[in-house]
């Protein structure tokens, strides 16, 4: 899931050179939308095991906020990064208030979905099947993104734009359309990530900030703008966290940032810098 959020961040940065802090808010929005969509669908007689369908639909539907936000962000496109950070952070705060207004301050839970698929025992520990579904979904999306970027016309255009914006424009690529689509794709990655995680947890107002910090650690480790970097970085952060908690819980955060600092010192551009998005 962290991969999805980081991938959305990478995609948008790679192509548009906008550092989008609001990616965390898309994650939170997706989570809330997922809860609402599933609650509505189950209320209308949908059999419980099919809950992932409205869940994903809810997440995807929220990607509609993509195009208008892209329009807004276009105004600061060629400005200094600090403007981008300011504007996208303002978006984080505003969207947090929107969520508070629509869904309230109390945590919102999804009922009766987490254990619908039962549990399995893997190597002596019990794991809910849903966790495996999420892992599989993450892998599938990563694969799909890879195919999309390397095998399709749209992917080639996106990569060309990331490589050299002016040249792509000169060759007749409609920049605005590419930007709009890429940004919306980035939003969708975030919202679907949020929707996927929600059966196992609860949606809270401040989940946006929490995930932004981790997504940035992922991006720094993996290298800005690199899709493969996002996947590997997310894996590294996840394993580090779990490892630290299992052995020495006090260094959970520290361990991640030690690696971040190490990467910054040894390979300032990140592990997969320079690779195409």
């Amino acid at each position, binding site marked *: 899931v962290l991969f999805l959020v980081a991938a959305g961040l990478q995609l948008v940065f790679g192509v548009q050179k906008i550092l989008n802090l609001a990616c965390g808010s898309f994650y939170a929005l997706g989570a809330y939308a997922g809860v609402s969509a599933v609650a509505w669908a189950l209320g209308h007689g949908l059999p419980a095991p099919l809950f992932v369908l409205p869940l994903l639909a809810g997440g995807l539907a929220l990607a509609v906020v993509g195009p208008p936000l892209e329009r807004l962000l276009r105004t600061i496109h060629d400005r200094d990064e600090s403007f981008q950070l300011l504007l996208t952070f303002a978006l984080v705060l505003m969207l947090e208030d929107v969520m508070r207004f629509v869904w309230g301050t*109390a945590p919102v839970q999804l009922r009766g979905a987490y254990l619908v698929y039962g549990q399995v025992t893997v190597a002596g520990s019990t794991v809910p099947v849903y966790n495996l579904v999420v892992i599989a979904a993450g892998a599938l999306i990563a694969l799909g993104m890879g195919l999309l970027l390397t095998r399709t016309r749209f992917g080639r255009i996106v990569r060309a734009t990331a490589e050299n914006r002016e040249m792509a424009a000169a060759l007749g690529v409609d920049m605005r359309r590419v930007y709009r689509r890429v940004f919306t794709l980035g939003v969708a990655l975030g919202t679907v990530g949020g929707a996927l995680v929600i059966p196992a*947890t609860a949606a809270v107002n401040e989940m946006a900030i929490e995930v932004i910090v981790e997504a940035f650690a992922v991006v720094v480790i993996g290298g800005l703008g690199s899709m493969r970097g996002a996947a590997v970085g997310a894996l590294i952060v996840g394993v580090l966290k779990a490892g630290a908690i299992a052995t020495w819980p006090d260094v959970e955060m520290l361990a991640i940032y030690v690696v971040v600092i190490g990467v910054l010192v040894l390979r300032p551009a990140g592990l997969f810098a320079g690779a195409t998005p």
Partner: protein
Amino acid sequence: MRTTRRQFLTLTAAATAAAAARLDVAPAFAQSGPVKLGVLAAKAGVLAPVGESGLRGVQWAADRINAAGGILGRRIELVIEEESSPKDTVERFRKLALQDKVDAVTGAISTGVGLALGPVAEEMKTIWLSWDATTQKGVEETIPKPKYSFRSTDNECEAVMASILTARHWKGKFKTVAGINPDYSYGRDNWAAFLAIMKKHGIELSVVSELWPKLGATDFTAHVAALAQAKPDLIFSCHWAGDTPIFLKQAHGAGLTRSTKLVLTTGGGVHESLKKEFTPEGAILGYNTFYFEHAKMSALGKEFVRWHQEKFKEWPNYESDHGYFTIVAYRAAVERAARAAGGKWPAQDAIIQALEGVEAESLSGSRRYREDHIMEATFFQGTTTHKNKHDFVTIDPVESMTTKQIQKPSGVGLYDWINGWKV
């Protein structure tokens, strides 16, 4: 219409005159106008649901008092401000005292905020009636003899009670324990108190895992995996916010709740989110000072629960009771001081003196302020059950203990006090 210079001058003169007139009248008003009470209620973040709950208790108390004619004939007027970070909350406290000129301030939940507000209340010479925020650092009181701060019960009351119940119910039935507690003073202090009480009860145990997730965390998978590996007989947790159901849900998903004994000292604060589908029966669960379905609840408490359920479609939690108590305690103190002053509105010092040792009927029964400005109340905990009409767990049987049993007395260190118990 454009304002001419002459008109402008007239306006300015009138405004100045009005302002001057107001200045003259203001002191006279102060005795007959409304009693202004500042409220500091959290509205954002993890604290928001609890802050809202406290505010509801305060509002209900103020509405009832006003409907009955106010305090000595003066209506209560609430000036509501937000509790957020310690620094900002201190600014708002100053604003309430200086600009709004409130008679007293009620509110604050977070210990961090409480530590910052304590000295400021003394400095501003404004009465502060805390809901839940203490002025303890670690387990030591930072303002041993405050004049203006009236504080909540100690942070560790719930852990002390839950630990006593643990020893009572399960002594000899567990050997390995794990703690998962939010990573700040409340979590750390409660875990330390638990271990100290186990030792006092002669329970030999080995700690197999100590986990400190951030307050308000939404992902516990790694913690749950660590717990599953450590295989403790008993898990102690003082989580109290929206992270509680998330932890339980993920723990349940990993099969942790089936055979492990659970001690949840404070989870009752978010009781409606503890759904039956992932919260097991047989766990020890604490509701702080107010259990919404207590059979022996007073008529007043029952009326509040009914009103709360009708108005908000929610069953109330303890913070409403803290909020309610601060208001009725203030009224009781003013009336007590007024009797001594021949029925006149008493001076602030007289109100403070009357607050010391004041007793008032709160939603959970009779509560009082100790002479050292610490609250006394009754705490409710019990064993979780699924046998109810709700979709979340409740407790049966309900056990209650008063702060006389579970709160360290004035001027004594927590661990000295625990070590002095006869068990």
